[in-house]
């Protein structure tokens, strides 16, 4: 069980690292949203899965309720993260930001 927990935690950390580095390296605001909105979502999913596997050690009523709460967090994040991303994109579109395109170099 510990091995599964460590595996999922490390996977989530890799996703989070990709998200943070993508936010820094991407050239413009629209493409920054791609790593920010979604690598973080899957990172939260993987890390919460790891924590659930860790807390399955001694099973009781309290752990069952905390596992249900963690699943509630995952459900809410999966519902709210696309909405937040879409809201930010909408704000950018209405403000008239142009998106970054590849420049022709010759």
């Amino acid at each position, binding site marked *: 069980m510990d091995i599964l927990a460590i595996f999922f935690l490390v996977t989530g950390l890799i996703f989070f690292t990709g*998200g*943070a580095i993508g936010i820094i390296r991407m050239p413009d605001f629209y493409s920054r949203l791609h790593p920010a909105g979604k690598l*973080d979502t899957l990172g939260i999913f993987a890390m*919460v899965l790891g924590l659930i596997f860790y807390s399955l050690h001694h099973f009781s009523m309290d752990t069952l309720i*905390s596992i249900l709460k963690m699943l509630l*967090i995952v459900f809410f994040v999966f519902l709210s993260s696309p909405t937040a991303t879409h809201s930010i994109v909408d704000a950018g579109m209405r*403000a*008239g930001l142009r998106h970054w395109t590849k420049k022709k170099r010759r």
Partner: protein
Amino acid sequence: MSTFFLCTALFLCFLMLASLYRAIFGPTVLDRLVGVNAIGSKTVILLLLIGFLYGRVEMFIDIALAYAFLNFITVLAASRYFHKRKGLYEESFLE
């Protein structure tokens, strides 16, 4: 196992610093919003890890849940607020 949790939490803090770079130096306002959103989604996991470190998961999990809700509402409200600012970002795209 507790040292592993501690290392994970420290690494998460480092990643939050990396996203803080975008939140401070971002060229437009919406870039800062993206950075703040990324920090908030890492904070949820950090709160859960702190709960496991202190052995009081059932208390910290409520705080994490409330923080997830609050993060979502913050991003929604801020992006709604910047809807009506037309032409606010033009100077950053002059290059």
